[in-house]
């Protein structure tokens, strides 16, 4: 969308010197072209048009080396698409993604394989992302053998070492994925991602499908690996409790845009955007006691026809006049804490409700 020109404030500078991952005004659109009949009718002046979904809309973010960024939002807000853009599994429609200074997925300067290997992904459902007919040893060594990182004859030792690292016994090399429980499969998924020694890991809801006690084990594993391998992690999740525990910074996404981004403690102690505030209210708390739920009204709107201006305004409890006309600019409200909301734009105070 053309709202990029509305950006007034520059991105807040992160405490780290140079960002390891730098996403600049990245957008991703999915289009469904009109049928020829509809195209003909459209030329006759009837109300037909291509359907365009703005899955990711002018997103900029930076992740410093060795830190963990949490990306939270409801389903359908574009957080997984953004993860795929950063992993260059999908090309960006506009903008660019740079990882350690290298531009990803650009036709002009294609990256070497070695560079691409530095980014790896861990997926949500390990049963769907592991080949059910491949033995564990082949799952773990297919990548490194193909890319010439290890010799084929070393594959057993290599896979055994990886399994030990993710907390599995090394004697399971010749088993198949269905012989494991969900938590063990997710460990295998993580081991596969680590097999080509990446330094940037994109985890797309890695614990959403697991039981709480297993979740804790996987979170602990990720914390250990981050220390040991000096990993930079993008952690996509809808579970705010997990994000708070694991991440250094959090970005909150709503319908394709990042509405608030801040260091974890700043965000949880002082959420600024009404959407973030509402999200935090709705986290079920174990020590909160019996309570009344006061939900946000309505559901996330269809990305085919997003509301004009700020996407959140139809559900927002503090909506003002300018919300429905223009997308709010990003404003800085604290150290590394930026928010896109009209309430924080120093403007004529009489406009506010």
């Amino acid at each position: 969308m053309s709202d990029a020109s509305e950006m007034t404030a520059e991105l807040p500078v992160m405490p780290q010197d140079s960002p390891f991952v730098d996403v600049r005004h990245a957008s991703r659109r999915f289009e469904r072209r009109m049928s020829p009949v509809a195209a003909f009718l459209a030329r006759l002046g009837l109300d037909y048009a291509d359907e365009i979904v703005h899955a990711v809309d002018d997103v900029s973010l930076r992740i410093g080396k060795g830190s963990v960024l949490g990306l939270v939002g409801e389903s359908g807000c574009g957080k997984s698409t953004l993860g795929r853009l950063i992993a260059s599994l999908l090309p960006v429609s506009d903008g660019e993604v740079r990882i350690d200074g290298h531009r990803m997925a650009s036709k002009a300067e294609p990256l070497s394989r070695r560079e691409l290997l530095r980014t790896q992904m861990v997926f949500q459902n390990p049963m769907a992302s592991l080949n059910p007919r491949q033995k564990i040893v082949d799952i773990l060594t297919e990548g490194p053998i193909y890319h010439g990182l290890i010799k084929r004859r070393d594959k057993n030792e290599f896979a055994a070492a990886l399994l030990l690292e993710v907390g599995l016994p090394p004697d399971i090399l010749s088993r198949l994925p269905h012989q494991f429980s969900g938590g063990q499969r997710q460990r295998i998924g993580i081991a596969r991602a680590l097999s080509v020694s990446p330094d940037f890991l994109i985890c797309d809801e890695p614990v959403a499908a697991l039981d709480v006690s297993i979740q804790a084990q996987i979170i602990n594993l990720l914390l250990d690996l981050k220390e040991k391998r000096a990993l930079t992690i993008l952690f996509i999740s809808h579970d705010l409790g997990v994000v708070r525990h694991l991440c250094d910074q959090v970005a909150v996404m709503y319908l394709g845009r990042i509405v608030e981004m801040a260091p974890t403690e700043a965000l949880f102690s002082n959420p600024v955007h009404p959407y973030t505030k509402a999200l935090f209210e709705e986290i079920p708390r174990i020590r909160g006691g019996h309570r009344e739920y006061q939900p946000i009204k309505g559901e996330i709107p269809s990305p085919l026809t997003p509301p004009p201006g700020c996407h959140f305004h139809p559900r927002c409890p503090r909506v003002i006049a300018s919300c429905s006309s223009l997308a709010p600019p990003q404003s800085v409200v604290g150290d590394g804490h930026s928010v896109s909301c009209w309430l924080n734009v120093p403007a004529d105070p009489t406009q506010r409700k």
Partner: protein
Amino acid sequence: MTEPLNTMPENEQPVLNISGLSTVYNLKIGQVKSVTDVSFELARGEILGLVGESGSGKSVTGLSIAGLITAPGRVVSGSVLLHGQELTTLSENALRAIRGNDISIIFQDPMTTLNPVLTIGQQFFEVIHAHRKCSYSQAMKEAETALIEVGIPAPRERLDNYPHELSGGMRQRVCIAISLINKPSVVIADEPTTALDVTIQSQILHMMQRLVRERDVAMIWVTHDLSVVAGFCDKLAVMYAGRIVEAGPVQQVLSNPAHPYTAGLMDSIPGDCLPGSRLEQIPGTQPSPLQLPSGCAFRTRCKYARNECAEKPPEVAVGSGRTAQCFFPLTEVQNVRRK
């Protein structure tokens, strides 16, 4: 329903009384004891949270109560009393008259619960027509009111929609409206919000809280999420390997868990501890249901386990209305140290 809805006598009979319920699955590779000796009771307007990991038998407990266990599974012992009527010995026909009418179930995934080739209105009609004489247009009127109650905008249009035309949260609300349409006295909700976003989850919890209170429904809320139970349920039963290991009023159990497994579950939820620190985790995984350890099934993962635990643990009272199946229930002192 025999009594008027709005009166709550002091010594009311429980709506649902379960005692010694056991369900097994006879498989080729051996017998799986999915539910063993489960007992609890439920009064009007009460919500029981049934909590456990996957495979702990919480869903099978719900299915056993509704008489939905099919071969190779079988309810081998115990009784389920609904308004004093025994359900486990009823014929299938008699059960059909009760299911969907006096007991209803809400399942986890609304897309697989709803029939994809029928409109929402037709599915309402099926449920109403199965239990009482009713014209289609009258059923639609009832359905419309039910949809308004669960907060669905433009209910008249929705009745002509097919399930795939609705969003996930909307579908689950339709399921809830269908399950409540015949004014059941017991609702079994099997992880109804697990597949939904936090915002939609809190909308549904809000709505269920209101409906349970207004209609005096007794509800069993099956979930793996202790934090939902904390704000929503009145009573809590924690299941492990087919047994209820701890039960009692929610606030008391969560503020001072007696069974080491409950304590372990609570510790593995991120939130209270220092961000970035390691979470306390329960070591190991659940034992295979084919080879449960003798005695207390949790003893292989329990840090307080001693030799005695190989015997069947006693059910001890640990406060008013609270029980735990453990030789060495945690004391308050231990719980303070645990934090």
